[in-house]
Protein backbone atom coordinates (compact mmCIF):
# COMPACT_ATOMS: atom_id res chain seq x y z
CA UNK A 1 0.00 0.00 0.00
CA UNK A 2 1.26 3.43 -0.89
CA UNK A 3 1.76 5.88 1.98
CA UNK A 4 -0.62 8.79 1.65
CA UNK A 5 0.78 12.17 0.62
CA UNK A 6 -0.28 13.83 3.83
CA UNK A 7 1.68 11.28 5.82
CA UNK A 8 4.81 11.99 3.82
CA UNK A 9 4.23 15.69 4.37
CA UNK A 10 3.86 15.10 8.11
CA UNK A 11 7.10 13.15 8.11
CA UNK A 12 8.85 15.94 6.32
CA UNK A 13 7.41 18.42 8.76
CA UNK A 14 8.86 16.51 11.69
CA UNK A 15 12.20 16.65 9.91
CA UNK A 16 12.13 20.41 10.34
CA UNK A 17 10.90 21.01 6.79
CA UNK A 18 7.72 22.96 6.21
CA UNK A 19 5.42 21.71 3.48
CA UNK A 20 2.76 24.41 3.59
CA UNK A 21 4.65 27.44 2.44
CA UNK A 22 6.24 27.53 -0.99
CA UNK A 23 9.63 25.87 -0.98
CA UNK A 24 11.66 28.27 1.15
CA UNK A 25 14.60 29.80 -0.66
CA UNK A 26 16.93 29.35 2.26
CA UNK A 27 16.10 25.64 2.55
CA UNK A 28 16.89 24.93 -1.01
CA UNK A 29 20.56 25.58 -0.56
CA UNK A 30 21.00 22.17 1.04
CA UNK A 31 20.41 20.57 -2.33
CA UNK A 32 21.33 23.42 -4.60
CA UNK A 33 24.06 23.04 -7.19
CA UNK A 34 27.18 24.94 -6.16
CA UNK A 35 27.48 26.44 -9.67
CA UNK A 36 24.05 28.05 -9.45
CA UNK A 37 25.06 29.48 -6.11
CA UNK A 38 28.14 31.10 -7.60
CA UNK A 39 26.30 32.73 -10.47
CA UNK A 40 23.68 34.11 -8.15
CA UNK A 41 26.35 36.02 -6.31
CA UNK A 42 28.29 37.26 -9.28
CA UNK A 43 25.41 39.01 -10.98
CA UNK A 44 25.60 42.66 -10.20
CA UNK A 45 25.31 44.57 -6.98
CA UNK A 46 21.93 43.22 -5.93
CA UNK A 47 20.94 39.64 -5.29
CA UNK A 48 18.93 39.74 -8.52
CA UNK A 49 20.01 39.64 -12.11
CA UNK A 50 21.47 42.78 -13.68
CA UNK A 51 18.35 44.16 -15.36
CA UNK A 52 16.10 43.31 -12.45
CA UNK A 53 18.69 44.98 -10.23
CA UNK A 54 18.48 48.14 -12.29
CA UNK A 55 14.70 48.17 -12.12
CA UNK A 56 14.95 47.62 -8.41
CA UNK A 57 17.41 50.47 -8.02
CA UNK A 58 15.18 52.90 -9.92
CA UNK A 59 12.19 51.76 -7.93
CA UNK A 60 14.12 52.14 -4.70
CA UNK A 61 15.17 55.65 -5.65
CA UNK A 62 11.59 56.66 -6.48
CA UNK A 63 10.31 55.23 -3.23
CA UNK A 64 13.11 56.95 -1.34
CA UNK A 65 12.38 60.36 -2.76
CA UNK A 66 8.62 59.97 -2.42
CA UNK A 67 8.76 58.85 1.20
CA UNK A 68 11.23 61.57 2.12
CA UNK A 69 9.01 64.17 0.43
CA UNK A 70 5.91 63.01 2.27
CA UNK A 71 7.73 63.02 5.58
CA UNK A 72 9.15 66.46 4.80
CA UNK A 73 5.69 67.87 4.05
CA UNK A 74 4.29 66.48 7.29
CA UNK A 75 7.15 67.95 9.26
CA UNK A 76 6.94 71.34 7.55
CA UNK A 77 3.24 71.50 8.28
CA UNK A 78 4.05 70.70 11.92
CA UNK A 79 6.57 73.52 11.99
CA UNK A 80 3.90 75.90 10.73
CA UNK A 81 1.73 74.94 13.70
CA UNK A 82 4.49 75.39 16.27
CA UNK A 83 4.75 78.53 18.42
CA UNK A 84 6.40 81.51 16.75
CA UNK A 85 10.21 81.54 16.92
CA UNK A 86 11.74 84.02 19.36
CA UNK A 87 8.51 85.09 21.06
CA UNK A 88 8.90 86.08 24.69
CA UNK A 89 5.74 84.26 25.83
CA UNK A 90 6.48 80.84 24.37
CA UNK A 91 6.23 77.73 26.47
CA UNK A 92 9.89 77.60 27.64
CA UNK A 93 9.25 80.90 29.41
CA UNK A 94 8.16 79.15 32.61
CA UNK A 95 9.20 78.60 36.19
CA UNK A 96 12.00 76.28 35.08
CA UNK A 97 13.81 78.94 33.11
CA UNK A 98 13.04 81.55 35.74
CA UNK A 99 14.78 79.62 38.48
CA UNK A 100 17.74 78.71 36.28
CA UNK A 101 18.29 82.36 35.40
CA UNK A 102 17.30 84.21 38.53
CA UNK A 103 18.55 81.87 41.24
CA UNK A 104 21.04 79.69 39.40
CA UNK A 105 24.04 81.81 40.28
CA UNK A 106 23.16 82.04 43.97
CA UNK A 107 22.20 78.37 44.33
CA UNK A 108 24.95 76.76 42.31
CA UNK A 109 27.58 79.43 41.96
CA UNK A 110 28.60 79.71 38.31
CA UNK A 111 27.91 82.82 36.26
CA UNK A 112 27.67 80.69 33.11
CA UNK A 113 24.11 79.48 33.51
CA UNK A 114 24.48 76.69 30.97
CA UNK A 115 27.27 75.20 33.06
CA UNK A 116 25.03 75.33 36.12
CA UNK A 117 22.42 73.33 34.32
CA UNK A 118 24.57 70.67 32.76
CA UNK A 119 26.82 70.02 35.74
CA UNK A 120 24.53 70.47 38.74
CA UNK A 121 20.82 70.74 37.99
CA UNK A 122 21.01 67.99 35.37
CA UNK A 123 24.28 66.48 36.51
CA UNK A 124 23.04 62.92 36.09
CA UNK A 125 22.42 63.42 32.36
CA UNK A 126 25.85 64.85 31.86
CA UNK A 127 27.46 62.00 33.73
CA UNK A 128 25.62 59.65 31.41
CA UNK A 129 27.02 61.61 28.50
CA UNK A 130 30.59 61.23 29.79
CA UNK A 131 29.88 57.53 29.98
CA UNK A 132 28.81 57.58 26.32
CA UNK A 133 32.19 59.06 25.48
CA UNK A 134 33.92 56.43 27.59
CA UNK A 135 31.90 53.73 25.89
CA UNK A 136 32.69 55.18 22.46
CA UNK A 137 36.40 54.98 23.22
CA UNK A 138 36.02 51.43 24.56
CA UNK A 139 34.10 50.35 21.48
CA UNK A 140 36.72 51.84 19.18
CA UNK A 141 39.45 50.04 21.11
CA UNK A 142 37.47 46.81 20.92
CA UNK A 143 37.25 47.16 17.13
CA UNK A 144 40.57 48.65 16.14
CA UNK A 145 43.11 47.61 18.79
CA UNK A 146 45.63 45.39 17.09
CA UNK A 147 44.94 41.74 17.79
CA UNK A 148 45.29 38.38 16.13
CA UNK A 149 41.89 38.54 14.42
CA UNK A 150 42.01 41.91 12.72
CA UNK A 151 45.65 42.35 11.80
CA UNK A 152 47.82 40.38 9.44
CA UNK A 153 51.60 40.39 9.09
CA UNK A 154 51.15 42.51 5.98
CA UNK A 155 49.40 45.22 7.99
CA UNK A 156 52.19 45.30 10.51
CA UNK A 157 54.77 45.58 7.74
CA UNK A 158 52.89 48.45 6.10
CA UNK A 159 52.70 50.28 9.42
CA UNK A 160 56.39 49.74 10.20
CA UNK A 161 57.36 50.94 6.72
CA UNK A 162 55.30 54.12 7.01
CA UNK A 163 56.80 54.78 10.46
CA UNK A 164 60.30 54.39 9.08
CA UNK A 165 59.47 56.71 6.19
CA UNK A 166 58.06 59.18 8.65
CA UNK A 167 61.25 59.17 10.75
CA UNK A 168 63.51 59.63 7.73
CA UNK A 169 61.61 62.47 6.10
CA UNK A 170 60.73 64.39 9.20
CA UNK A 171 59.19 67.68 8.14
CA UNK A 172 61.27 70.35 9.88
CA UNK A 173 58.82 73.18 9.20
CA UNK A 174 55.96 71.27 10.79
CA UNK A 175 58.11 70.62 13.87
CA UNK A 176 59.02 74.27 14.31
CA UNK A 177 55.47 75.47 13.80
CA UNK A 178 54.30 72.93 16.34
CA UNK A 179 56.82 74.29 18.83
CA UNK A 180 55.45 77.79 18.31
CA UNK A 181 51.76 76.80 18.36
CA UNK A 182 51.87 74.28 21.18
CA UNK A 183 52.01 76.69 24.16
CA UNK A 184 49.29 78.88 22.66
CA UNK A 185 46.94 75.96 22.11
CA UNK A 186 47.62 74.52 25.54
CA UNK A 187 47.01 77.88 27.18
CA UNK A 188 43.80 78.39 25.24
CA UNK A 189 42.57 74.89 26.10
CA UNK A 190 43.39 75.27 29.77
CA UNK A 191 41.73 78.69 29.88
CA UNK A 192 38.52 77.37 28.36
CA UNK A 193 38.65 74.35 30.62
CA UNK A 194 39.18 76.20 33.89
CA UNK A 195 36.93 79.14 33.12
CA UNK A 196 33.96 76.95 32.27
CA UNK A 197 31.93 78.42 35.11
CA UNK A 198 32.66 82.03 34.17
CA UNK A 199 32.70 82.15 30.39
CA UNK A 200 31.58 79.98 27.47
CA UNK A 201 33.35 76.66 27.23
CA UNK A 202 33.99 74.15 29.95
CA UNK A 203 35.15 70.58 30.13
CA UNK A 204 33.95 69.33 26.76
CA UNK A 205 35.24 72.17 24.61
CA UNK A 206 38.46 72.59 26.60
CA UNK A 207 39.09 68.86 26.66
CA UNK A 208 38.72 68.57 22.89
CA UNK A 209 41.19 71.42 22.42
CA UNK A 210 43.69 69.69 24.71
CA UNK A 211 43.09 66.46 22.80
CA UNK A 212 43.76 68.39 19.62
CA UNK A 213 47.02 69.61 21.13
CA UNK A 214 48.08 66.01 21.80
CA UNK A 215 47.22 65.09 18.21
CA UNK A 216 49.26 68.02 16.91
CA UNK A 217 52.18 66.93 19.09
CA UNK A 218 52.01 63.42 17.63
CA UNK A 219 51.96 64.84 14.11
CA UNK A 220 54.51 67.58 14.53
CA UNK A 221 57.18 65.77 16.53
CA UNK A 222 56.79 62.38 14.96
CA UNK A 223 55.28 59.04 15.90
CA UNK A 224 56.07 57.85 19.40
CA UNK A 225 56.72 61.26 20.89
CA UNK A 226 53.43 61.35 22.77
CA UNK A 227 53.72 57.69 23.60
CA UNK A 228 56.91 58.39 25.51
CA UNK A 229 55.04 60.32 28.17
CA UNK A 230 51.49 59.07 27.61
CA UNK A 231 51.55 55.29 27.43
CA UNK A 232 48.82 52.74 28.07
CA UNK A 233 49.23 52.85 31.79
CA UNK A 234 49.02 56.61 32.15
CA UNK A 235 46.16 56.75 29.65
CA UNK A 236 44.09 54.26 31.63
CA UNK A 237 44.91 55.79 34.99
CA UNK A 238 44.08 59.33 33.86
CA UNK A 239 40.86 58.31 32.12
CA UNK A 240 39.57 56.09 34.91
CA UNK A 241 40.78 58.51 37.57
CA UNK A 242 38.95 61.42 35.96
CA UNK A 243 35.73 59.44 35.59
CA UNK A 244 35.90 58.17 39.16
CA UNK A 245 36.56 61.67 40.50
CA UNK A 246 33.58 62.91 38.53
CA UNK A 247 31.44 60.03 39.78
CA UNK A 248 32.41 60.63 43.39
CA UNK A 249 31.59 64.34 43.19
CA UNK A 250 28.29 63.81 41.43
CA UNK A 251 27.27 60.93 43.73
CA UNK A 252 28.04 63.07 46.74
CA UNK A 253 25.90 65.93 45.42
CA UNK A 254 23.04 63.64 44.52
CA UNK A 255 23.07 61.70 47.77
CA UNK A 256 23.33 64.79 49.93
CA UNK A 257 20.75 66.70 47.94
CA UNK A 258 18.23 63.89 47.75
CA UNK A 259 18.41 63.02 51.44
CA UNK A 260 18.26 66.61 52.64
CA UNK A 261 21.72 66.53 54.26
CA UNK A 262 23.84 69.69 54.48
CA UNK A 263 26.24 70.20 51.57
CA UNK A 264 29.67 71.07 52.97
CA UNK A 265 31.30 72.13 49.70
CA UNK A 266 31.51 75.95 49.76
CA UNK A 267 30.17 77.84 46.77
CA UNK A 268 32.56 80.78 47.03
CA UNK A 269 32.02 84.22 45.57
CA UNK A 270 30.33 84.05 42.16
CA UNK A 271 32.55 85.44 39.43
CA UNK A 272 35.91 84.47 40.91
CA UNK A 273 37.93 81.57 39.57
CA UNK A 274 37.76 79.48 42.76
CA UNK A 275 34.00 79.41 43.05
CA UNK A 276 30.95 77.38 42.17
CA UNK A 277 31.68 74.37 44.42
CA UNK A 278 31.99 71.14 42.48
CA UNK A 279 31.88 72.73 39.03
CA UNK A 280 35.58 73.51 38.67
CA UNK A 281 36.84 70.03 39.67
CA UNK A 282 34.18 68.42 37.50
CA UNK A 283 35.22 70.54 34.54
CA UNK A 284 38.84 69.50 35.04
CA UNK A 285 37.85 65.83 35.29
CA UNK A 286 35.68 66.05 32.19
CA UNK A 287 38.41 67.88 30.33
CA UNK A 288 40.97 65.19 31.11
CA UNK A 289 38.59 62.44 30.11
CA UNK A 290 37.63 64.15 26.85
CA UNK A 291 41.27 64.88 25.98
CA UNK A 292 42.21 61.22 26.60
CA UNK A 293 39.27 60.01 24.55
CA UNK A 294 39.94 62.26 21.58
CA UNK A 295 43.59 61.29 21.53
CA UNK A 296 42.63 57.62 21.83
CA UNK A 297 40.26 57.98 18.87
CA UNK A 298 43.10 59.47 16.86
CA UNK A 299 45.73 56.87 17.64
CA UNK A 300 43.48 53.86 17.41
CA UNK A 301 42.18 55.02 14.05
CA UNK A 302 45.66 55.66 12.74
CA UNK A 303 47.75 52.89 14.28
CA UNK A 304 45.50 50.55 16.21
CA UNK A 305 47.45 51.25 19.38
CA UNK A 306 48.25 54.12 21.70
Amino acid sequence: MKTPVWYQKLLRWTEGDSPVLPEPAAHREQTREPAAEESAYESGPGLLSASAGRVRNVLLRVITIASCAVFLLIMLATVAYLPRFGDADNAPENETSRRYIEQGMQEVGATNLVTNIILVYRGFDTYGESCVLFLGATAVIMLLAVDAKNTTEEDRRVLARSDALDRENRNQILGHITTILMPVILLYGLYILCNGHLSPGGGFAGGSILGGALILCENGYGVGKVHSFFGHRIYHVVKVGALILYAVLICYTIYVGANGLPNVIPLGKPGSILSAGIILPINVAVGLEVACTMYAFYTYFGRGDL
Partner: protein
Amino acid sequence: MDINAILQMLHANRFEAASVILFVVGLGGMLFNRSLFKKVVSMGFMDSAIFLFLTSAGYVEGRLAPIIADPAVTATMEVYSHPLPAGLVLTGIVVSVSFTAFGLALTQRLYKKYHSLNIDEIMMQAQKSED
Protein backbone atom coordinates in the same frame (compact mmCIF):
# COMPACT_ATOMS: atom_id res chain seq x y z
CA MET B 1 -4.61 77.80 7.83
CA ASP B 2 -4.29 78.99 4.27
CA ILE B 3 -1.10 78.81 2.28
CA ASN B 4 -0.14 82.39 3.02
CA ALA B 5 -0.40 81.95 6.74
CA ILE B 6 1.64 78.75 6.49
CA LEU B 7 4.36 80.49 4.51
CA GLN B 8 4.39 83.30 6.99
CA MET B 9 4.78 80.88 9.87
CA LEU B 10 7.54 79.07 8.00
CA HIS B 11 9.33 82.38 7.56
CA ALA B 12 8.93 83.14 11.25
CA ASN B 13 10.05 79.64 12.20
CA ARG B 14 12.86 79.59 9.64
CA PHE B 15 15.29 77.82 11.95
CA GLU B 16 12.83 75.08 12.70
CA ALA B 17 11.90 74.77 9.03
CA ALA B 18 15.55 74.53 8.00
CA SER B 19 16.23 72.00 10.72
CA VAL B 20 13.31 69.88 9.55
CA ILE B 21 14.62 69.89 5.98
CA LEU B 22 18.10 69.02 7.22
CA PHE B 23 16.66 66.24 9.34
CA VAL B 24 14.89 64.69 6.39
CA VAL B 25 17.98 65.02 4.18
CA GLY B 26 20.11 63.41 6.88
CA LEU B 27 17.59 60.67 7.53
CA GLY B 28 17.27 59.93 3.82
CA GLY B 29 21.03 59.82 3.46
CA MET B 30 21.37 57.48 6.40
CA LEU B 31 18.69 55.08 5.27
CA PHE B 32 19.14 55.09 1.51
CA ASN B 33 22.73 56.03 0.66
CA ARG B 34 24.60 52.82 -0.09
CA SER B 35 28.02 54.11 0.92
CA LEU B 36 28.79 53.42 4.57
CA PHE B 37 30.99 56.50 4.80
CA LYS B 38 28.19 58.76 3.61
CA LYS B 39 25.84 57.09 6.03
CA VAL B 40 28.11 58.16 8.86
CA VAL B 41 28.34 61.71 7.46
CA SER B 42 24.56 61.87 7.09
CA MET B 43 24.26 60.78 10.69
CA GLY B 44 26.17 63.91 11.67
CA PHE B 45 23.81 66.07 9.61
CA MET B 46 20.77 64.46 11.17
CA ASP B 47 22.03 65.02 14.71
CA SER B 48 22.93 68.64 13.93
CA ALA B 49 19.42 69.19 12.59
CA ILE B 50 17.89 68.04 15.85
CA PHE B 51 20.25 70.27 17.80
CA LEU B 52 19.32 73.25 15.64
CA PHE B 53 15.65 72.61 16.33
CA LEU B 54 16.22 72.30 20.06
CA THR B 55 18.42 75.39 20.31
CA SER B 56 15.96 77.54 18.43
CA ALA B 57 13.42 76.75 21.16
CA GLY B 58 15.66 78.54 23.65
CA TYR B 59 16.14 81.74 21.67
CA VAL B 60 14.17 84.82 22.59
CA GLU B 61 14.25 87.95 20.46
CA GLY B 62 16.56 90.62 21.83
CA ARG B 63 17.89 88.75 24.86
CA LEU B 64 21.51 88.08 25.76
CA ALA B 65 23.46 84.86 25.94
CA PRO B 66 22.88 83.13 29.30
CA ILE B 67 26.11 84.23 30.96
CA ILE B 68 25.75 86.69 33.80
CA ALA B 69 27.87 89.71 33.07
CA ASP B 70 27.95 91.26 36.53
CA PRO B 71 27.47 88.93 39.51
CA ALA B 72 26.60 91.87 41.75
CA VAL B 73 23.38 92.65 39.85
CA THR B 74 20.45 90.32 40.43
CA ALA B 75 19.60 88.58 37.17
CA THR B 76 16.08 88.76 35.83
CA MET B 77 14.55 86.41 33.35
CA GLU B 78 13.78 89.17 30.84
CA VAL B 79 17.47 89.76 30.13
CA TYR B 80 18.78 86.31 29.22
CA SER B 81 17.63 83.71 26.73
CA HIS B 82 16.72 80.22 27.98
CA PRO B 83 19.80 78.25 29.02
CA LEU B 84 18.25 74.76 29.16
CA PRO B 85 18.23 73.91 25.41
CA ALA B 86 21.87 74.95 25.07
CA GLY B 87 22.77 72.61 27.91
CA LEU B 88 20.91 69.72 26.31
CA VAL B 89 22.54 70.33 22.94
CA LEU B 90 25.98 70.45 24.54
CA THR B 91 25.27 66.97 25.86
CA GLY B 92 24.01 65.89 22.46
CA ILE B 93 27.04 67.12 20.50
CA VAL B 94 29.39 65.00 22.55
CA VAL B 95 27.15 61.96 22.22
CA SER B 96 27.11 62.46 18.48
CA VAL B 97 30.93 62.49 18.31
CA SER B 98 31.19 59.12 20.01
CA PHE B 99 28.75 57.69 17.51
CA THR B 100 30.66 59.17 14.59
CA ALA B 101 33.82 57.56 15.90
CA PHE B 102 32.10 54.23 16.43
CA GLY B 103 30.50 54.26 12.99
CA LEU B 104 33.79 55.15 11.34
CA ALA B 105 35.62 52.43 13.22
CA LEU B 106 33.09 49.89 11.96
CA THR B 107 33.41 51.27 8.43
CA GLN B 108 37.17 51.03 8.57
CA ARG B 109 37.09 47.43 9.73
CA LEU B 110 34.61 46.48 7.03
CA TYR B 111 36.65 48.20 4.36
CA LYS B 112 39.75 46.37 5.51
CA LYS B 113 37.93 43.07 5.29
CA TYR B 114 35.85 43.48 2.14
CA HIS B 115 37.61 46.33 0.27
CA SER B 116 34.36 48.09 -0.38
CA LEU B 117 32.21 50.79 1.15
CA ASN B 118 28.99 49.74 -0.52
CA ILE B 119 26.73 48.15 2.07
CA ASP B 120 24.98 45.88 -0.46
CA GLU B 121 28.25 44.52 -1.73
CA ILE B 122 29.59 44.04 1.79
CA MET B 123 26.45 42.22 2.87
CA MET B 124 26.66 39.98 -0.17
CA GLN B 125 30.27 39.09 0.49
CA ALA B 126 29.59 38.47 4.17
CA GLN B 127 26.70 36.18 3.25
CA LYS B 128 28.91 34.36 0.81
CA SER B 129 31.70 33.80 3.29
CA GLU B 130 29.25 32.50 5.85
CA ASP B 131 27.66 29.84 3.65
